[in-house]
């Protein structure tokens, strides 16, 4: 078992999708894929789905509760003042603030979770096997944690070049 990955570079998304399809048919593990724009077929084939929307909904529900509690505490319990003869608990006015603060708190917390989960933050170094993935290069890395057997690497090389890889390199880990 060699501790190395196979890095293949493609010139377009069509070849990339075909290659990933064939690799998957042959049970060869695809570690990661880098593309200049989101290729939805790839995301689907690798079965990757974000759970960010679930977090967002939870954060939204939390924000509604927190904002309502805050408004009720400040306007009714802590320092009740009559404004224009309206009741202390002026729900219709609260709705607007709850609406706005829910959006504010939800989007801020979602962005924070996005950054934590992707590990992206201002000033981070870009770690990428081949440059050009932000321009016109589509890159696959084949490999797994335990490393791959030599015959699998050879098989993967054949599949990748048959599907139009313009460059295949081995990368030691």
């Amino acid at each position, binding site marked *: 078992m060699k501790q190395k990955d196979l890095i293949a570079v493609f010139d377009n998304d069509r070849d990339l999708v075909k290659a990933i399809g064939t690799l998957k048919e042959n049970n060869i593990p695809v570690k*990661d894929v880098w593309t200049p724009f989101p290729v939805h077929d790839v*995301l689907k084939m690798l079965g990757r*789905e974000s759970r960010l*929307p679930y977090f967002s909904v939870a954060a939204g529900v939390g924000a509604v509760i927190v904002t309502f509690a805050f*408004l009720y505490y400040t306007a009714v319990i802590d320092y009740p003042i009559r404004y224009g003869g309206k009741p202390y608990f002026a729900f219709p006015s609260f709705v607007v603030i709850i609406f706005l603060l829910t959006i504010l708190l939800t989007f*801020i917390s979602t*962005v924070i979770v996005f950054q934590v989960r992707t590990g992206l933050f*201002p000033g981070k170094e870009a770690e990428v096997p081949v440059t050009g993935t932000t321009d016109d290069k589509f890159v696959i890395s084949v490999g797994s944690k335990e490393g791959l057997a030599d015959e699998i690497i050879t098989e993967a090389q054949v599949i990748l070049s048959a599907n139009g890889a313009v460059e295949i390199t081995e990368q030691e880990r």
Partner: protein
Amino acid sequence: MDMYNTAVRPSLVEGNKSYRQVTSDIAGPAERTPARWWYIAMTVATLALLFGLWAMYVTVVEGLGTWGLNNSVGWGWDIINFVWWIGIGHAGTAFTIFLIVFRAKWTASISRAAEAMTVFAVMNAGLFPALHLGRIWLIFYIFPYPNTRGPLWVNFNSPLFWDVFAILTYLLLSVTLWYFGMVPDLATLRDRATSKIRKNIYGFFSMGWVGSVGNWVRYEALAKILGGLAAPLVVSVHTIVAIDFAVSVIPGWHTTILPPYFFVGAIFSGFAMVLTIMILIRKTFALTDFITKSHLDSICRVLLFGSMVLGLAYVTELFVAWYSGSEYEFFTFFKSRATGNYSAAFWIMIVCNAIIPQLLWSKKIRGSLGAMLVISIIINVGMWFERFVILISSLAQDYLPSSWVGYSPTIVDIGIYAGTFGIFACGMLMFIRFIPMIAISEVKGLTNQEKVNREDDNK
């Protein structure tokens, strides 16, 4: 990507471009030294900005007495310009929503610049109410935080307070949408950078983006969430601005039509500003393959629709003023606005917003860049006069003839307005100088690369 090439709509990116060409076409202007006109424009914008800074200094140091406001007209140019700028801002968010929520792919090449416009316009808008506070150093009083004055919380029943949260949330969300939308493109610029300083600066802001599966899958989820949150927010912002007026008892303001009427007006003026900017950008930076005539045509159709809704709103207001039987309403709409002291502003508003845009029915005009540019500017002049009519005519002549006054702005009012143009122009010029004007990663998904591939196969 043939699904976007239908018989109904011409291809969204012209000229059979490869991915590499798309990158260099769009990133190019941000990598070259700008032409001489850029420096001239920047100088003019900076002068306007300095004029504005002087006016703001006078406002803060001497007080609101330097403005043209008086006992009857308590909201003057400041609030007119506030509403005008924030309305312009709405279009950028509208484009983002069209792209992310409605998946209208034609907006992909416009949304970045439109969002830039939103960010600078909303910043300008926020300046006016802040300066109108008079004692701006006490601005923190408007935030509800535990304080030593009671603690005295804020009045949650006041639409003016709702506005604080609405504008603030809107500004933060539009900046976030804009910035996160450009992260993959900043990474593109980082990877193309030839000098170390460019590499470091773009590297810092691109947050280590590499375009891996983990990046994209969460990025797309984030875009949908932010777009989804922006959609109701943008409707609420101008609604709340309208409610600032509508909950008062001033004739001409106290109407239920105001929120939808304001919102449509906002989108209308914003789209006009987008059209102005797009016409100028596409020619100057040779981006005509990305911002095609078909794109401009689509914006014109939205403008046409907005113009008709707005025209209907004007007529509805007049009708209700008569039909309600309220003599004050009747006076404001028919005596003060349509035929009285403010009739010039009123008819400029009608002609610029409801009548001239009808020219866009003609396909010939929708194809003429000059005509579209002129119409788009006329619309924004008209929209400024709309806010002028709403504010000044209602305040200068309300219930008591004894308190009727005239209103005219002072040099300080004019200075602040000029200053906001300076901020806007400086911001947009810096944007086109340093940031890709079009979302590169979005547009790459729409190119004719597939067609190029097929032609390669046939060779």
